[in-house]
């Protein structure tokens, strides 16, 4: 149905032109789900945009053929292309929050789309819209059609987006990361829906995603892309089950398995990023420095006890004179992290994982409850002074490495800040030397210190963030989704690094993630939160072998796995 041959896309920019997609050939048959997978910058979305005829102004198709049925997509006039978009090819975007108009009822949006492409009476369009919503799994569609987007949950909203894409009976739907913004439970439902639509309606899907688990779950065929080129293409089971190309193999090795715990990921060295300098000598120096702070020998992180922590956020006023409704973000949560171990903290978005981390880090004040660090009371936010010793002991690695480092400071000044702040090293030359040594410990060359954060990739930035945390000589490290903004191969490297450092220095670690497979790789114990309440807490291996709680079982079952029967 859709055939793309030799597609090459170039982007002009001020220093010349860059090839974003090179010589890509692929086909999508009726009812087939074709996965496009690759890491950021691989050109996945560019291919989708080129097929849709929605390349940004700087982009141009330099070569190749694109045909949908017997229509040549490259020779269309602007008006024809406009008609074709929506009518024969539709698109589903990543974020259902922004792809619906918040000021129109979903009914109006559906009817508008249908009428834009077909000359039928408005009532007929409305009937069609209701039918569509029912087909898509929205109960009581006749009443719900008058609702606004904000009255639907995230998953329901993504269904409405899919209904919008369906309402003109397209032959091809391009879904660009359709489930990336969704929780696993909702993701599983949306993926089921896509699968069903491909089967019942014979719609061809191009599923663009960075998540190999999603591909493994529903794609019939898959194209693995790297730097705009096709690396490997074929049946999903064959490509992912028995990859031939070294890149695909490396990619598969980097995917954290849900069913077992790896000691470390087999991360092949990426070409072009070869380590030219030997980092072991300075790394040893940083190691010695870290060890010496704990009084030598067997350093061990502190024990952390959380007792009956409750957090309320003040919400909106109901009326002009009404009281503010408060929102309970954490409800009576009690858990403890054993010294020198990793506690995995999992839950869906809104479950309160990050809030708990912020309570411990003194960024959020709890309404009730107590915290203890190695038996001694740990003051909550409003009572924790700037000079409190726990400020140094507790360090955090944030989710987004693009915002956690100040882009106006050089890496060196970012790294030496904790040394100065906590008075760990007063001599400037020593500070400089230690910062560079610490970079070696996290796998970066010393020259890195003289550059600015924006000159690094996400993975490198996260390494810098880890180095900053270590330079406080911490005992308790809080990692808040440290790898969820990273590509899978980079994630594997960072997880390896964190594991290594944790075991070497006996850091007590609170590891927060929405991804159970990642948590399994990292943690000794595990705590599950749901809607601010504790579901269960206990040893990790026992949890993964057979969770006690029904909610945990669902969570486990819905996590996509890369396994083939």
């Amino acid at each position, binding site marked *: 149905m859709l055939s793309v041959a030799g597609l090459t896309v170039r982007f002009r920019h*001020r220093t010349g032109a860059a090839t974003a997609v090179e010589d890509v050939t692929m086909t999508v048959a009726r009812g087939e789900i074709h996965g496009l997978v690759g890491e950021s910058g691989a050109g996945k979305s560019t291919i989708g945009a080129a097929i849709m005829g929605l390349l940004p102004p700087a982009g141009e198709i330099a070569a190749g053929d694109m045909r949908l049925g017997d229509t040549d997509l490259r020779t269309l006039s602007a008006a024809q292309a406009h008609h074709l978009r929506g009518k024969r090819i539709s698109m589903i975007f990543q974020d259902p929050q922004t792809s619906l108009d918040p000021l129109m009822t979903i009914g109006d949006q559906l009817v508008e789309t249908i009428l834009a492409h077909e000359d039928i009476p408005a009532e007929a369009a409305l009937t069609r819209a209701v039918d569509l919503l029912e087909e898509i799994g929205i109960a009581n569609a006749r009443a719900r059609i008058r609702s606004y987007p904000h009255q639907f949950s995230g998953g329901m909203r993504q269904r409405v987006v899919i209904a919008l894409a369906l309402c003109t009976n397209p032959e091809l739907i391009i879904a660009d990361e359709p489930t990336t913004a969704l929780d696993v439970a909702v993701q599983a439902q949306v993926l089921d829906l896509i699968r069903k639509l491909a089967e019942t309606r014979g719609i061809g899907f191009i599923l663009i995603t960075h998540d190999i688990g999603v591909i493994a779950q529903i794609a019939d065929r898959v194209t693995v892309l790297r730097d705009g080129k096709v690396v490997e293409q074929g049946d999903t089971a064959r490509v992912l089950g028995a990859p031939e190309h070294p890149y695909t193999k490396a990619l598969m090795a980097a995917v954290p398995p849900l069913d077992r715990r790896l000691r470390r990921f087999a991360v092949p060295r990426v070409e072009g990023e070869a380590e030219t300098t030997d980092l072991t000598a300075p790394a040893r120096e940083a190691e010695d420095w870290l060890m010496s702070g704990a009084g030598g020998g067997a350093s061990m992180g502190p024990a952390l006890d959380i007792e009956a922590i409750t957090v309320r956020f003040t919400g909106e006023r109901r009326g002009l004179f009404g009281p503010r409704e408060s929102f309970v973000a954490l409800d009576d949560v009690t858990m403890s992290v054993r010294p020198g171990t990793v506690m995995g903290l999992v839950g869906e978005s809104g479950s309160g994982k990050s809030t708990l981390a912020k309570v411990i*880090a*003194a*960024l959020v004040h709890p309404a009730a409850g107590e915290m203890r660090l190695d038996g001694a009371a740990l003051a909550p936010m409003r009572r924790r*002074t*700037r*000079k*409190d010793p726990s*400020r*140094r002991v*507790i*360090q*955090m690695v*944030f*989710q*987004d490495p693009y*915002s*956690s*480092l*100040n*882009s*106006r*400071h050089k890496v060196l000044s970012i790294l030496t*800040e*904790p040394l100065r*702040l906590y008075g760990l090293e007063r001599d400037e030359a020593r500070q400089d030397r230690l910062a560079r040594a610490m970079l070696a410990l996290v796998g970066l060359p010393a020259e890195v210190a003289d550059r600015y954060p924006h000159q690094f990739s996400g993975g490198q930035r996260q390494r810098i963030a880890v180095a*900053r945390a270590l330079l*406080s000589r911490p005992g308790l490290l809080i990692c808040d989704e440290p790898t969820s903004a990273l590509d899978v191969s980079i994630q594997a490297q960072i997880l390896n690094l964190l594991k290594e450092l944790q075991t070497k220095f006996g850091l007590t670690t609170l590891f927060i993630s929405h991804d159970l497979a990642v948590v399994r790789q990292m943690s000794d114990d595990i705590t599950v939160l749901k809607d601010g309440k504790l579901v269960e807490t206990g040893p990790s291996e026992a949890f993964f072998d057979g969770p006690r709680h029904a909610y945990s079982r669902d969570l486990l079952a819905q996590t996509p796995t890369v396994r083939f029967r």
Partner: protein
Amino acid sequence: MMLARLMQTEGVWLFSRNPAAILAAIVTIVVVAGAVLAPWIAPTNPYDLSSFSLIDGLLPPLWEQGGDPRFLLGTDDQGRDMLSSILYGARLSLIIASVAMGIALVLGVSLGLAAGFFGGRLDAIVMRVADVQLALPAILTALLIDGISRGILPREVHDDLRLAVITLAIALSLWVNFARTARASTFVERNKDYVQAAIMMGQHPLRIMLRHILPNIVGPLLVIATVDLASAILLEATLSFLGVGLPADSPSLGTLIRIGMQYLLSGEWWILWMPTVFLVVLVVSINLLGDFLRDLFNPSLR
């Protein structure tokens, strides 16, 4: 080396493709240079009574019938060279405007940073004061300060302080812009992880504001500073035009225009038009530069 790197930045590249910005920059540089260097490059010194004579009064510009090669833009009724008067006047206008803008910048940014960072009661107080300030037109503020200072200061002291009074008046009507922008940007930055990390580590709030947040919000502030410089020049001209501003013996552009008003319909058009055109060109150029900077710092407008 530094220059070579600067030439490769995106800003320079965008600048080189924006003819309006280039023209505006050239005009601004020429005008500012002319004003700053007035004592050295102006043909005569308009403050020096011995340097001009009534005989040369009301001569038209060089290209008009009866123009005198000594006076490129003609002379006023006292025989003063218009070009020299304008250069000296622009110098005074620019000094007042820059100092006023500087005061407004420091005051507004400090208050805005603190309000945005601490929030709560401090934020409420600062912003309500700003709202009140915003409800008063700039000219009214200036007239008010001038009036009060006239009332409480002895006459001689007031005359000596006229320059300070007008500068303060302009600064007071401009600080709100800086405060609001700084506060809004600080709110955004405050919730970013690098600031959260700094708070968590227990760094001093002053250090977080100045070392971490401030460098990240200078972009929009720079744009406002540029546009406000133009506003300050205009405001000073308006006040001087109304006679609130500077005394006639040290004329700024506004004073020159006020004096020129008397000749509006008399046939000696240049006495009014030369300083007016000069003022318009200067303000438009600075505003165009401000527009360019705004586009530069707002990628979504590119």
